[in-house]
């Protein structure tokens, strides 16, 4: 299918049409924050944004999810799972980096041995329309981690902003189905050459670079290096970096009972909290900042790679921007990469 033209001034109307078929989630402005939320009118979508405060990870892995409810705590045979969603869902306007998270989350939640039914139920029908980044942020480093401002991975359609119009490139059959018969005209040669220019300019403007080659081996070498203690000294051990991360997938499972009934829920959890690994006996294999921050880096850049052949970072830069004490993942990785091997 040839790339189509979606005029910016028509985009709200275009979304209105899609709203008849889909539950649509798009970036919206809430005071100073840009977040992803369900929209009920195309006008609500705020597409001229840098990136959202939170990634749209919750489309696949919500912070709070009910696993099941029960009406009697005495009888596990009477548990009920929440009903599945009605209309298919459309995620509109996500950034390519954030869309790549599904490739990683798929490996975790839809693995060979175990399949997470909740994740699959959300993931399978989700249609994803991304908007390429014509103006990457200084904190973006997607190109260092296998992505790019116009990466198509995890997308069904990629929109490219060429000024007054978006050029819509079809990535998947599902994307094709969405674009078909919408009365959008094909993009002409002039528009397509603009696309090329926009892409070239954006890629050239990427300033941030992180060395990933050989990093996993280096991390294994310097696992016991005292540098970890120094790098983590200012870390507050809050959950900002992990809760704002598109790929972090750790969670906790808890019961919430009221009177005789209740529910079992899963909620995000993070390796940065001491409680995460604290055993009932009182033992904690990751007792301090040092072990916990090291776990975050090891998980993303070594363990994920060891287990699933990919690193667990899409380079969105949220942890860089939002860390209250400016622990900058790029700087830490650079220090680690340049670290000489320590004698065991």
């Amino acid at each position: 299918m040839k790339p189509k033209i979606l005029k910016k001034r028509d985009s709200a109307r275009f979304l209105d049409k899609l709203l008849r078929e889909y539950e649509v989630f798009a970036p919206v402005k809430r005071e100073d924050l840009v977040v992803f939320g369900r929209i009920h009118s195309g006008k609500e979508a705020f597409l001229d944004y840098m990136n959202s405060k939170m990634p749209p990870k919750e489309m696949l892995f919500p912070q709070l999810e009910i696993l099941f409810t029960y009406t009697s705590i005495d009888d596990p045979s009477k548990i009920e799972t929440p009903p599945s969603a009605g209309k298919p869902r459309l995620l509109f306007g996500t950034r390519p980096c954030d869309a790549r998270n599904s490739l990683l989350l798929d490996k975790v939640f839809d693995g060979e041995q175990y399949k997470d039914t909740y994740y699959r139920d959300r993931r399978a029908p989700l249609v994803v329309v991304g908007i390429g980044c014509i103006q990457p942020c200084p904190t973006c480093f997607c190109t260092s981690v296998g992505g790019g401002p116009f990466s198509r991975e995890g997308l069904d359609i990629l929109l490219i902003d060429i000024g007054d119009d978006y050029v819509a490139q079809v990535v998947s059959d599902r994307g094709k189905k969405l674009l078909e018969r919408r009365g959008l005209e094909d993009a002409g040669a002039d528009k397509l050459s603009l696309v090329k220019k926009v892409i070239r300019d954006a890629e050239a403007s990427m300033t941030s670079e992180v060395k990933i080659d050989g990093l996993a081996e280096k991390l294994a070498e310097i696992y016991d290096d005292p540098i970890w203690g120094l790098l983590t000294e200012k870390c507050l051990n809050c959950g900002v970096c992990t809760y704002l991360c598109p790929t972090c997938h750790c969670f906790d499972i808890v019961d919430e009972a009221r009177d005789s009934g209740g529910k079992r829920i899963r909620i995000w959890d993070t390796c940065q909290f001491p409680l995460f690994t604290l055993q009932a006996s009182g033992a904690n294999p990751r007792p301090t900042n040092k072990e916990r921050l090291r776990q975050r880096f090891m998980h993303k850049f070594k363990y994920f790679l060891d287990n699933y052949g990919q690193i667990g970072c899409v380079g969105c830069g949220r942890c860089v921007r939002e860390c209250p004490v400016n622990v900058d993942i790029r700087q830490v990785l650079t220090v680690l990469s340049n670290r000489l091997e320590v004698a065991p």
Partner: protein
Amino acid sequence: MRNPYLPLPMRIERVVVETDDRNIKTFSLSFFHEEDEANFTYIPGQFAELSVLGEGEAPFGMASSPTQPGRLEFTVSKAGVVTTALHNMEPGEIIGIRGPLGNGYPIETFKGKNIVIIGGGFGFSTLRALTNYMLDSHHRNSFGDISIFYGARSPGLLLYKDELQEWGRRKDLGLYLTVDRGDNGWKGRVGVVPAIAKEVAPSAENAYALVCGPPIMIKFTLPVVHELGFPPERVLLSMEMKMKCGLGMCGRCNIGHKYVCRDGPVFTLAQLNQLPQEY
């Protein structure tokens, strides 16, 4: 496709208080539904998540052997919220179960080999399951000599006392019980498990050493099995980390890139030597 988070109902049939401090109990459970029981095929060393609705879930190794049909047992030490709730439950009450989970002991590779079991305290439960599996009349001939070193802090803290007596009477099994500190009634060995293992010095030839116990015991046992000549590939440990999902997803029980719940809990020492010492 089955939702791996949904617990199946089980009824508590029997509760045995194992230790004189009453902090460890063994629960015998039976399935509500026959098909659930048929689907629950496990091997020693695997574990399951037990649910007390309203309180939560916690992982426990199966303390019984699949060779003992109709009997599914878990030994529970009272420590946190779920275990306390379990301890307050009585026969007839219903709990949930998810499993079996984890890899379990590589029983096939044990065939024709001598087995040296070294266990301490509460960590003995899955070794007990394995022992009962090997002692089963259909299986006993598949294995060589079996030696069991098992200890607790005091005689009153030894688990499965009746069974230990029964094992003690068997000729096809070397049982070496010990306590850190004896009491008036105790006529057996006094000393820590690694010291007894060193003294008895079971041969490492054609043998596997299986170690499970508190961290301090493991720390002192590993040099002993090394001295006895067990190569790291033939030393197996069952690891314990905080777990939630049991499916390798929730991210907390990893040792390096291995998830104890999914890739373990049983690892060879050779495997562990390749991983960070973060446990």
